[in-house]
C-alpha cells in the first residue's frame, strides 16, 4: 500500500467565526491506498462528511492540501476543480443523489456529458453501467419510480460513469433498510473484487468489517490504532 491514489495533509476546516466557530477538522493526514476499500467510521458530528467533501473537492479547507494522482487539488481554479470532479472523483451522497426530472439512464448520461463524452457514446455507456449495478431493466424509470436501494445503485453507476480513480460515498446505505443495504453492498463488493478504490463512511459494523483499511474519526482528527486500544 505504498502507492496512495489520494493523500490529505494537515486538513483543517473551520465553520463560522468568533463565538460560533466550529472546528470540524483539526489537522487530518490521510493516505488512501490505490485499490483499497477504505472505511471511515466515527460518531455523528465529528467531521466525517466534512472530510469527504474536502476529499471530493466540493469545499475548500481552511488549511491543508489534498493530492490526487499527484495533483494538488486546491491550487486549481474553479474550472479545473470542476473538471477534476467530473473525471477523477465519483461521489455518492446519503440520499437524493439523482436529478428528479431525469430517468436513471439520463442521470448517468448527464455525468458523462459533464466529462465531455459524446451523446452517442453516452447512450451505450449508460446502459452498460446500469447493467453493472443490475438495473438494466430500469433504465427509463425516473427516481420517483425506484426504491431507495435502486436509487443508490443508480447513483453508484453514475459515480462510476467516467471511471474515476476513486469513489467517495458518504453513508450510501445510511437511509436504507437492511434488504436494500444488502443490494447496495453486493454492488460494492463487486467493485472491491475489481480493485476499485472506494472510500465510504458508514455506521454499520457489518460493513466496516469488510474494509481493508479502517479509519476512525473523532473530534475532527484521525485516531491511530494504538490510541483506539487505549481508549477502549
Amino acid at each position: 500500500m505504498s502507492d496512495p491514489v489520494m493523500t490529505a495533509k494537515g486538513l483543517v476546516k473551520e465553520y463560522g467565526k468568533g463565538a460560533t466557530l466550529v472546528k470540524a477538522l483539526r489537522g487530518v493526514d490521510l493516505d488512501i491506498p490505490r485499490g483499497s476499500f477504505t472505511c471511515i467510521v466515527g460518531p455523528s458530528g465529528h467531521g466525517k462528511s466534512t472530510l469527504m467533501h474536502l476529499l471530493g473537492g466540493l469545499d475548500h479547507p481552511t488549511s491543508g492540501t489534498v493530492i490526487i494522482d499527484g495533483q494538488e487539488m486546491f491550487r486549481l481554479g474553479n474550472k479545473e476543480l470542476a473538471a477534476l470532479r467530473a473525471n477523477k472523483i465519483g461521489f455518492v451522497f446519503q440520499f437524493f443523489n439523482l436529478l428528479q426530472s431525469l430517468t436513471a439512464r439520463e442521470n448517468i448520461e448527464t455525468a458523462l456529458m459533464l466529462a465531455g463524452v459524446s451523446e452517442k457514446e453516452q447512450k451505450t455507456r449508460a446502459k452498460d453501467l446500469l447493467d453493472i449495478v443490475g438495473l438494466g431493466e430500469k433504465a427509463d424509470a425516473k427516481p420517483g419510480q425506484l426504491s431507495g436501494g435502486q436509487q443508490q445503485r443508480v447513483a453508484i453507476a453514475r459515480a462510476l460513469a467516467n471511471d474515476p480513480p476513486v469513489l467517495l460515498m458518504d453513508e450510501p446505505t445510511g437511509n436504507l433498510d437492511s434488504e436494500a443495504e444488502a443490494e447496495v453492498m453486493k454492488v460494492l463488493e463487486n467493485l472491491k473484487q475489481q480493485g476499485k478504490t472506494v472510500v465510504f463512511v458508514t455506521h454499520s459494523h457489518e460493513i466496516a468489517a469488510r474494509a481493508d483499511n479502517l479509519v476512525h474519526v473523532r473530534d475532527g482528527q484521525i485516531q491511530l490504532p494504538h490510541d483506539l486500544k487505549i481508549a477502549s
Partner: protein
Amino acid sequence: MTPSKLVFKNLTRRKGRFLFTLLGIMIGMASFVTFMALGGSLKSQIEKESAALGANLVVTPKGSCAYEQVSILTGEQLPTNITRDEVAAIRSIDGMQAIPYLAERSAIDNRPVSVMGILPEETRVFKKWNLAQGGYFPAEDSEGVVLGAVLAEQFGLLPGSDVRIRGANLKVLGILEETGGKDDLTVFLSLPVAQNLYEQIDLVSYVAVRVDRLDEVELYANKIKDKVSLGVVSDKQMRSSVLAIVGTVNMTLQLIAAVAILAAAFGIVNTMMTATYERKREIGILQAMGATRYGVFRLFLIESGIYGLIGGIGGAVLGGLAAVFATPYISQNAATSFVKGSQSSLDPIMFAGAILFSTLVAMVAGLYPAIKASKLSPVEAISYE
C-alpha cells in the same frame, strides 16, 4: 444528454407553472406586436388619406384644433359652421379650386358610418372617382346615395337597394370603385339633401382647396384668410399634426403593452427563483458531478431565455393574427378609424425583432436567479434538506 435537453427537461417538469409563465410573456408580446402592427398601418393610412383628400389647403372652422384636423382625415363629425357666403367668397378666388364638404355620421344596422354631403359633379372630378356599379347623382340636388365600395360590400347593398339615413329612406344610385381610403366606407349624399337631412341649412364642415401652382400654396392661404375669418391649414401641417396625435395614442398603447411585458418579466423572475430554490440540492449534485459555476449559470439563463423565445414566437403570431382579424372590429375613434378596412402592416423584420426582444427581456429577467443558482456552493446546496 446535452445541455439543451437538460434545460428542456427542467423547463417542463412543472407543467402548470411553465404554461402560466409562458402565457404571461405571450400575452404581453401579443399586445405589443398588435399595437406595433396597427401603429405601422396607421401611419401609412394617414399618408393615403391625405393624398385621397387631394387638397393643398383645407379651410376649417375658426379656431379648430389639431383634433378637428384629424376628423377631416378620418371622416368624423365636425363642428359645422362655415356659411354659404364664406364658401362663395373662397370659391371666388381665381387660380384655385375649392370644394365644400358636410361631414356627418349615421348608422346602418347599428354600425356607425360616415356620411358626406358633396357637390356631386365637382367632387367626382376633384377626387377622380370612377363608378363600379349603377349610376351617379344626375343633378346637383338629387335624392339618393352613392356608396363607397367596401361599405357597399359590408352591408350587402346594391344599386336600387334602400338605405335609411337619419330616418329617411334613400335609394342607392351607384357604387364607387375602391379607392383604398376612407371614401370606401362613406355614404355620399348631394350637399343640399345632406344639409336638409341634418338640419345644417347653408352650412358646411370644411372646404378642400387645390391651388393651380404648388409653389403658391402659402400665397393662397393668405388670400383665403383675407377674404374669410376661418382657419386655413396646409395638407403638410395637417399631416404632421395628425401624425403627432396618432403617434401619441400609439405610444400610449405601446406603453401599456410594455407594462404587460414588464409584469410578465417579473413572472419569469418569480418562476426562476422558485426553480432555483426547489433545485438547490440538484445544483449541488450537478456541481459534484463536475458542472462549473458558469455551466449552472448558463443552464438557468437559457431556461429563462426559452420562456422569452417561445413567448415571443407565440406572441408575434397571436399579435399578428389579432392585428389582421380584429382590426376591422376595433371601435372607431380618431386614431383607430384609419385602420378600418385597411390591411395591417405585418413586417417580418418586426416579427424577428419582437422575438429577439422577448428573448432578451426573459434572459435579463433570468439573470438574477441564474447568478444566485451559480453562486451556491456545492456543500451548501447538498446540506439543504
